[in-house]
């Protein structure tokens, strides 16, 4: 919403403040000023001059030499402008003054353009005559300006007067952010009311006097509203003997400052009233309306209608139409029809000021694909009382501007108007909610400024009568906010909540996630973040089979595009994309991790919450291998109290991983994640030109095993006994199997076993590898005897032999 301060001041005449003061004060009472711009920025020393004489420039065909009177003196100006003649009154910038832009109307330079006396082709020129573009505006806003050349004032202006003033440019345009609850502030009057309350100055509403001749509007038109749920009020008035012409300058200036192009008196009046009252109006050419009848009803599915912008639009039965006895003539609240539009030949005008159902207008505007200034206002839900006020204002302007003759009376079809809201006056409750100590009297003063009436109910208690334009004031909290706004948010004290103390805490899940971040970072991995939604093509890139359950996704019905259309069911795409980005940018040794959800549907189509599973995903390329990643996982397990044996099952069956370099991670029999080297085909698909490794832990599976409880188990007091064994092992036996045997058979005395050598090569026979373990035994309560260890070793060796393992000498 943009408005000129001068228009606000028209209704708050005592308002006196700087632009910045206005901006700050309005913002602090809730009408946020987003910014403001002075219309006279960079316009300095510009006066009205009158051309006394014109001579040809002796040395230039396209230049003329003018003597220009500026009242106190006459100065010589050389110009190339084609449109001036002797006697014209024009804006003249004097030596040392400034203009806003160049004559070409391009972007305005920040500092403007300084004008100095000089010589043009040898002839002194002591100023410059200005075009409207040089004054920082254009013909859209000043339609009387010539297409090319110097702006020419009407004859009655005073020579030497302030030209900027005459153009209405000593003004500031403010841009507001109006919150959606304040429908009334989408109007000049609404903002003026707020300004008046903010600055504690009187608000002077426009005086709308009764208009109309002694004819009866009912002889001209009748109105029938068939769908009253969508149109609670429809007001219609008629003006005849319309004389189309330009609207007066003051109206043009105000519209221009609001960003609305002046067109002609009739259009300008409807726009002016829309800005002023926030009530959109529509004008029909009455002679195009069949049967002198307006019918308001829903369209039929599939109806086509040509709007006055020439477009043909398809309707459905939720769109409300304005019709005459034979045809549709407008889409209610959105745009009129080509078939009833006003032309310069119009004789009689039918004004419509109606109230439509806001939600319906919003939906219809979307459906029809046409959001207009009018629909933007209607969709917020307007005050039905405002329709009448606005239509009368328009008729008054028709009369005042000599635009036509107003027919007496108004057709008014409406459901009974809602009574004004009445709320109890509860000063203690307001103070209680705000934590303030505002006096009753001060509150009542605030209400008075806001036009909230005070009445006594049947018990004699004071009650608040809410004006109809404040549809947002419905309860105690709303009134408390009004008190707070005008008492001043800044004056409300700052305290801390009293009452029962609560324990601040991070739940276990989040503590474990924090630990995961810590460990990943200690191990050199940096945290990445990727989107939760991705393309369904991801599954092909990751070689996921067509019938895989991972392809059953939670799908967005209105995505930004196919690339963001499904909720991820595995976390690898984001990780691989991130690694690819880094690889393409030639970053070396990139290690990343992410903690983010995947989204698994519990059923399709989705009818309830989906299974959101936090995934701890690690990925890297560069220094390191499979076991680097395995090490990170184990560091994490250690730090979250998962001290039991982790199993790594190579039969992971992950299509996106190298078939010989992948494993499921199992803990106490439960699969909690996987890790592996990325499949070379997948690397190709992501344009990663080097080996990469990924690991994913499914945190909901991990969490039940995690704990921060620790117990000191003592430090061994008695010496350990170690035995080293060296074995020749068939190649396909995993060291995990060997360890499993050792652990299974080592008995209570077994403390640990540690792989210290593994070798395949020339000294070992084909199909075998050499593996060496150091096995340590210890008792907590005594020094072990040779015989204690011998028994355990025997069992272990027996077990190993059963796997086809030979002991080396």
């Amino acid at each position, binding site marked *: 919403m943009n408005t000129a301060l001068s228009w606000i001041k028209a209704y708050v005449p005592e308002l006196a403040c700087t632009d910045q003061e206005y901006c700050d004060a309005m913002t602090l009472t*809730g009408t946020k000023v987003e910014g403001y711009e002075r219309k006279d920025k960079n316009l300095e020393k510009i006066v009205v001059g009158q051309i006394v004489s014109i001579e040809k420039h002796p040395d230039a065909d396209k230049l003329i030499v003018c003597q220009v009177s500026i009242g106190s003196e006459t100065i010589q100006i050389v110009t190339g402008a084609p449109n001036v003649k002797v006697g014209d009154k024009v804006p003249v910038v004097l030596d040392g003054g400034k203009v806003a832009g160049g004559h070409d109307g391009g972007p305005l330079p920040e500092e403007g353009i300084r004008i100095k006396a000089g010589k043009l082709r040898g002839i002194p020129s002591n100023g410059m005559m200005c075009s409207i573009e040089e004054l920082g505006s254009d013909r859209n806003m000043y339609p009387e300006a010539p297409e090319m050349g110097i702006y020419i004032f009407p004859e009655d202006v005073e020579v030497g007067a302030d030209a900027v003033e005459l153009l209405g440019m000593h003004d500031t345009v403010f841009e507001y952010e109006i919150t959606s609850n304040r429908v009334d502030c989408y109007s000049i009057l609404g903002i003026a009311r707020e300004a008046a309350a903010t600055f504690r100055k009187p608000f002077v509403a426009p005086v709308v006097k009764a208009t109309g001749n002694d004819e009866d509007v009912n002889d001209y038109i009748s109105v029938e509203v068939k769908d009253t749920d969508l149109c609670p009020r429809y007001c219609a008035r008629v003006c005849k003997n319309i004389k189309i012409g330009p609207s007066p300058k003051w109206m043009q200036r105000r519209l221009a400052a609001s960003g609305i192009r002046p067109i002609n008196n009739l259009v300008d009046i409807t726009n002016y009233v829309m800005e002023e009252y926030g009530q959109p109006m529509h004008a029909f050419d009455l002679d195009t309306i069949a049967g002198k009848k307006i019918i308001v009803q829903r369209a039929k599915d599939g109806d086509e209608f040509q709007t006055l912008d020439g477009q043909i639009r398809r309707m459905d039965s939720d769109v409300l139409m304005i019709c005459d006895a034979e045809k549709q003539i407008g889409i209610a609240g959105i745009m009129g029809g080509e078939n009833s539009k006003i032309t310069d030949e119009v004789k009689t005008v039918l004004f419509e000021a109606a109230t439509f159902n806001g939600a319906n207008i919003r939906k219809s505007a979307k459906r029809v694909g046409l959001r207009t200034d009018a629909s933007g206002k209607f969709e917020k839900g307007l005050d039905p009382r405002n329709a009448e006020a606005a239509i009368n204002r328009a008729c008054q302007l028709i009369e005042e501007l000599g635009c036509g003759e107003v027919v007496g009376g108004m057709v008014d079809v409406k459901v009974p108007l809602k009574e004004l809201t009445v709320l109890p006056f509860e000063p203690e409750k307001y103070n209680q909610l705000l934590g303030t100590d505002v006096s009753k009297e001060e509150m009542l003063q605030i209400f008075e400024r806001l036009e909230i009436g005070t009445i006594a109910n049947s018990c004699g208690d004071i009650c608040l009568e809410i004006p109809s334009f404040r549809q947002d004031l419905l309860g105690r909290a709303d009134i408390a906010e009004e008190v707070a706004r005008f008492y001043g948010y800044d004056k409300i004290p700052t305290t801390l*909540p009293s009452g029962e103390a609560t*324990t*601040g805490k991070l739940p276990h899940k989040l503590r474990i996630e924090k630990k995961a971040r810590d460990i990943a970072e200690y191990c050199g991995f*940096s945290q990445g973040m990727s989107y939760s939604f991705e393309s369904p093509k991801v599954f092909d890139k990751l070689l996921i089979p067509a019938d895989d359950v991972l392809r059953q996704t939670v799908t967005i019905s209105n995505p930004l595009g196919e690339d963001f259309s499904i909720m991820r069911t595995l976390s690898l795409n984001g990780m691989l994309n991130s690694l690819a980005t880094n690889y393409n940018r030639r970053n070396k040794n990139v290690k990343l991790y992410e903690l983010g959800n995947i989204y698994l549907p519990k059923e399709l189509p989705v009818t309830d919450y989906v299974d959101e599973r936090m995934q701890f995903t690690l990925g890297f390329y560069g220094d390191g291998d499979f076991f680097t990643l395995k090490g990170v996982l184990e560091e994490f397990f250690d730090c979250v109290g998962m001290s039991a044996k982790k199993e790594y099952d190579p039969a992971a069956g992950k299509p996106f991983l190298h078939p010989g370099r992948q494993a499921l991670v199992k803990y106490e029999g439960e699969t909690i994640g996987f890790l592996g080297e990325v499949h070379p085909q997948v690397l190709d698909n992501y344009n990663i030109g080097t080996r990469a490794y990924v690991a994913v832990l499914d945190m909901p599976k991990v969490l039940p095993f995690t704990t921060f409880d620790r117990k000191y188990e003592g430090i061994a007091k008695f010496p350990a006994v170690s035995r080293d064994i060296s074995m020749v092992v068939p190649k396909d036996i995993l060291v995990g199997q060997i360890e499993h045997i050792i652990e299974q058979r080592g008995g209570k005395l077994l403390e640990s076993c540690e792989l210290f050598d593994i070798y395949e090569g020339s000294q070992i026979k084909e199909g075998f590898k050499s593996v060496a373990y150091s096995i340590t035994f210890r008792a907590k309560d005594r020094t072990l005897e040779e015989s204690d260890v011998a028994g355990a070793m025997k069992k272990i060796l027996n077990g190993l032999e059963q796997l086809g393992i030979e002991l080396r000498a």
Partner: protein
Amino acid sequence: MQAQGLFLIMAQVSVFRAGPRTLSANESLDLGIRVVPRIIRPLLCMQQGTFFVYSTRTPIIEMTRKEDTMKAKVDQIREQALAQIKDCDTIEKLNEIRVSILGKKGELTEVLKSMKDVAPEDRPKVGQWVNETRTEIETVLEEAKTRMEKAVREAKMRAEVIDVTLPAKKAEIGHRHPNTIALEEVERIFVGMGYEVVEGPEVEKDYYNFEALNIPADHPAKDEQDTFYINGDILLRTQTSGVQVHEMEKGKLPIRMIAPGRVFRADEVDATHSPSFHQIEGLVIDKNITFADLKGTLAEFAKEMFGEDTRVKFRPHHFPFTEPSAEMDVSCFKCGGKGCRFCKGEGWIEILGCGMVHPHVLEMSHIDPEEYTGFAFGVGLERIALLKYEIDDMRLLYENDIRFLKQF
């Protein structure tokens, strides 16, 4: 007394010899050098004292010839030893000297062995001389050894000088995402004030995202937020505010919670927009909670988050689920409020939206607004991260370029 002292020395030495296993000559020597002065020195001192008293009472002339010879012999050994030690320049040579004089077959030991030739009444005196000499030699040997070891160590260190300006060997730890750094900071502050951190679903029901927050079906706010829908009832949450409702429905009061999380809006990706970003919701419900409490709490938060000198400004605003509502600005933490490019010259930066929980919202969650009141607030995490770390393009947060991440 003297005899006892001597016995003690001998006894001590014999302990080394009678250890659990046979020590090599070198080892026993080492132990001798190290242990004798430390353990037995107090005893020796006592002996010396006694000896001093004794010797003044006994004229030297009374010594026998044998004594004289012995004395001369011991003195000679001492002079010779001291001279050798003085000339010695390596620890190895020093050990040789020790063995040759104090060792099992050393000269001084030989003197003791020849004690049988001394008259019994003179033996204590001779023993005393020998012990005294032995102690003296040992002390000088020890000093010389310490000196030489020190010299050796210093020479070694002189040879080990390094260029301390060579590059560091870093453990190459990873870096946390700026969003997370900002989030953990917010969590730390509110947990310290007694708030619990809770989570809610990202794929949410329309009811929790809108309706229970006073945004009914036809409310314009539903359009403003450009919601991603899964179907008519299920959507990607556009705000973390729904977690408020889940928390209130649990029926446990009072509530002090913050709920961080991912939210989604149908914004095209550009420097200032992302279809996925993070919010932190806050909610306090208790008896007698006031707007003043809201101001106080958030002012405290702002100081902790942006620095002790941070000022806050509350502006009236509108949210469907709070009334009264406000937006909070903080004085620009880059320029302190003077105006700079971060605050677009305004001196203030808009940080969060907040307000008193709307009575209708409380009612819908079965909390009696006549008894309980509360406040809620919502902070955009990316907004804080972008401002605080001067990140000029939101896309950087989701690209995961390691050169970006390493800066945090």
